[in-house]
């Protein structure tokens, strides 16, 4: 028996939301660079332009959050579970690593200054590893 079934697109829907999330994330990274390097290299630390760059970054960041929310809501239940597990681990690691990291900086346990970018890197790495582990687990 070979019954045909309607082919609609979970995959194409996910591709679309992933692309939208990637565009928003890329735009956010660009506005981060703009906000960080603009005052020094583009407008000689003029307050008005710096505030505008910050506002642009926050606005695009809000768009990225919504795109991420839409992406998660579009996932099927297993992929959502993997994604939410990864997010939970990432938030936990961010909290657990962040506080001691700052204390280590305060009491000179580490030779460099603790920056938010270090934490972002740790959290990004944790998220990627958690997603890979979760996907592998249900493969």
């Amino acid at each position, binding site marked *: *028996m*070979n019954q045909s*079934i309607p082919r609609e697109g*979970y995959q194409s829907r996910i591709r679309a939301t992933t692309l939208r999330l990637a565009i928003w994330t890329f735009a956010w990274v660009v506005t981060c660079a703009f906000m960080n390097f603009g005052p020094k290299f583009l407008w000689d630390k003029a307050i008005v332009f710096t505030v505008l760059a910050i506002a642009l970054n926050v606005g695009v960041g809000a768009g990225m959050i919504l795109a991420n929310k839409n992406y998660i809501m579009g996932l099927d239940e297993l*992929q959502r579970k993997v994604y939410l597990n990864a997010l939970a681990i990432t938030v936990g690691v961010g909290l657990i690593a962040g506080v001691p990291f700052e204390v280590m900086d305060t009491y000179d346990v580490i030779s460099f200054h603790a920056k938010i970018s270090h934490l972002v890197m740790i959290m990004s790495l944790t998220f990627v590893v958690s997603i890979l582990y979760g996907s592998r687990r249900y493969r």
Partner: protein
Amino acid sequence: MKNRLKVLRAERNWTQAELADALDVSRQTVNAIETGKFDPSLPLAFRAARLFGLRIEEIFHDEERPTLTTEIRKDAYV
């Protein structure tokens, strides 16, 4: 939870990707359900039941709990 998804799919010559499309989930999810690594939600179980034209309990069954007929047979011996 055990299920007959793989058998039912094979009877219809559907690939995992085709079944995934019909259930509006990813192929990975179909595979995880078929191999017993992931238990579907009730709405997804209903979608599968509708797709195959069967009742949910004809596709999915709890492996920890004995079936009703087993319980009745046990009672008969008490």
